[in-house]
């Protein structure tokens, strides 16, 4: 099962290494990790998506909490939350396929961020299902490059 953990940590050098190292040392695999400053100076928020069984994730949470630099560990997996990821996809495009592709991505509220003579780059944000759907739709045209930011998540309300 997939778990989404939201962490409040000290915003300082070495904290990301500390957290990532902890996952590595205890044999936990990170699916995605995002870090950014919060509204409060000196604090950062990390969103970490991991998979594993319940006991493993319990242990991860406790080990994270034990770190002196970690203020809060919130498991938002089963909480009402919004999780978003941004992706950019560079797809092969010819003058013939270009309009087709732009039409195709329109319902996803994605945007074209770059057009070159043989490629088009599309930016999309959303949850996992939506992003996977876009990727699958574009795959037949030939994906040249794909970059994902990993998920940022926030509790609702």
């Amino acid at each position, binding site marked *: 099962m997939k778990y989404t953990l939201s962490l409040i940590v*000290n915003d300082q050098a070495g904290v990301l290494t500390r957290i990532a190292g902890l996952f590595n040392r205890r044999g936990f695999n990170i699916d995605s990790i995002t870090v950014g400053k919060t509204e409060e100076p000196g604090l950062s928020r990390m969103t970490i998506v991991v998979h594993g069984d319940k006991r493993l994730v*319990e242990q991860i949470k406790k080990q994270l909490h034990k770190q*002196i630099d970690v203020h809060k560990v919130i498991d938002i997996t089963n909480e009402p939350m919004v999780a978003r990821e941004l992706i950019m996809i560079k797809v092969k495009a010819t003058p013939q396929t270009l309009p087709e592709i732009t039409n195709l991505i329109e319902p996803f509220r994605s945007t074209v961020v770059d057009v070159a003579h043989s490629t088009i780059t599309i930016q999309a944000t959303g949850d996992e299902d939506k992003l996977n759907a876009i990727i699958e739709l574009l795959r037949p045209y030939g994906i040249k490059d794909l970059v994902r930011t990993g998920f940022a998540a926030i509790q609702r309300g």
Partner: protein
Amino acid sequence: MRAEAYQQVDNRLAEEPVYEMKSGAEMIIECLKREGVDVIFGYPGGAVIPIYDALYDSGLKHVLSRHEQGAIHAADGYARSTGKVGVVIGTSGPGATNLVTGITNAYMDSIPLVVLTGQVPTSYIGTDAFQEADITGITMPITKHNYLVQRTQDLPKILKEAFYIARSGRPGPVLIDIPKDISYDVAPFYYPESVSIPSYQPTIEPNPSQVMKVAKTIEQAKRPLILAGGGVISSGAETELLQFVEKMQIPVTTTLMGLGGFPASHPLWLGMPGMHGTVTANRAIQNADLLISLGARFDDRVTGKIERFAPKAKIVHVDIDPAEVGKIIPTQLPLVGDIKHVLVQLMKKTSPGDTIEWIEQLQQWKKEKPLRYKDSKDGIKAQYVIEQLSNYTKGDAIISTDVGQHQMWTAQYYKFEKARTLLTSGGLGTMGFGLPAAVGAQVGHPDQKVVCISGDGSIQMNIQELATIVQQKLPLKIIILNNSYLGMVRQWQQIFHDCRYSCTFMTGPDFVKLAEAYGMLGIRAVKKEEVTEVLEQGMKHNGPVIMEFMVEEEENVFPFVPPGASLDEMIEGE
């Protein structure tokens, strides 16, 4: 350091009156004094020259080791035997990396240390400068916390925090890496009187409703058992444990780290559990209906095969570290808090249950299956030497060990009566720990008998510390049980690899001559009849001594639960 902590320092420094100016090195020494530190273990080098300069006329005692590993194990032995925070200084690069084993050792056994390392000047960091090593990076997974100091004015706050983190909650080593220019630079000295770290608030008092649940469960149990670990000792809860046990009439088994936390002479003590535990302790675990773990962490050397550990028991897991609860064994009743506080609360809420039958059963097992070995007529059995030592000291000594067969025989045959009288590397199993740990213990307890029990393999791993002992005039007693083998590995090779003794036969120096070369007394026993005489002469000698006992070469440690087997699959021995 955290942004808000930097801010705090800056705010205070902006205040009137103006703070006294000090160099970073002077600040370090001043802070150590204010923390009540009376001895530092260390080894100088380029990056810590300013700190050693400030130390020169500071009045603080410094014990110079012969290798940084010796210094940190000594600080560790000092901490284990006194209950205070051990302090060690090493220089940058190799000085720092030589500390790594000792830091890991302290981390695994939850020993409070403050480790000060020198670092190359800030402008050189990241350039692969001479004697540069990223020690904060290296020690991230083996310290409770670590710091790289960026500004001289932050040193007092960092030191204050480091001592607090090292000793509070679940203790552990904290490392502070100090670039050379930070030690030289002069800044206003602001010393914070208290510490507050919002993200670090250890739980000391247990949850009252959880205490009630545990109390009910204890009252109903017919076959309860206490598994006491190192947490009992680091919490200082040995008196509370004794009172609790006597009131509730619950038998006790103590892990290797817990030995001394409960008196070995007490009728309710069952011995050590696990791989080389007593038959009674292991049977008690397998038959208990309630297992109360106090500050133990279910190490594989204690549990054997997890799936078949304590199959009939409800588990109460008491620990100050919530991450230990449920890590290895599913726990029905977790109780997070300081053991001492937990026992005080439990004592108030619990009435004794009916455990008479259970205790009778255990006493019978104890009688039927005592620890035993086949003594020889002329040759020396290691177990015999330890029994004789135990008879001689009657528990009134501090014993350090190295790692291997002699360590297990010490755990089995020496009767530990008091907390903090056994210093042994439990978690990491560090050969070479014993001798320097004894140095630290003797420095902390100048008037106590301190005995290092070692093997011919282990002693050679930090043998250079003999010079430290002589220089410091420490009257240490060193017992070498010499079997010409790496005995524990040889035992495994005998049992699991058909006696193929691959690379475990070992020669050593003439330890008697070696002792003399270092300027200490060396004596040796080769026959059984010489054992007590050598022991007595050595123990009475008023200076450092090596007592070498030529013990039977292929003796094994029994009982023995093979790795991965369940506690009821004990090999009891010949």
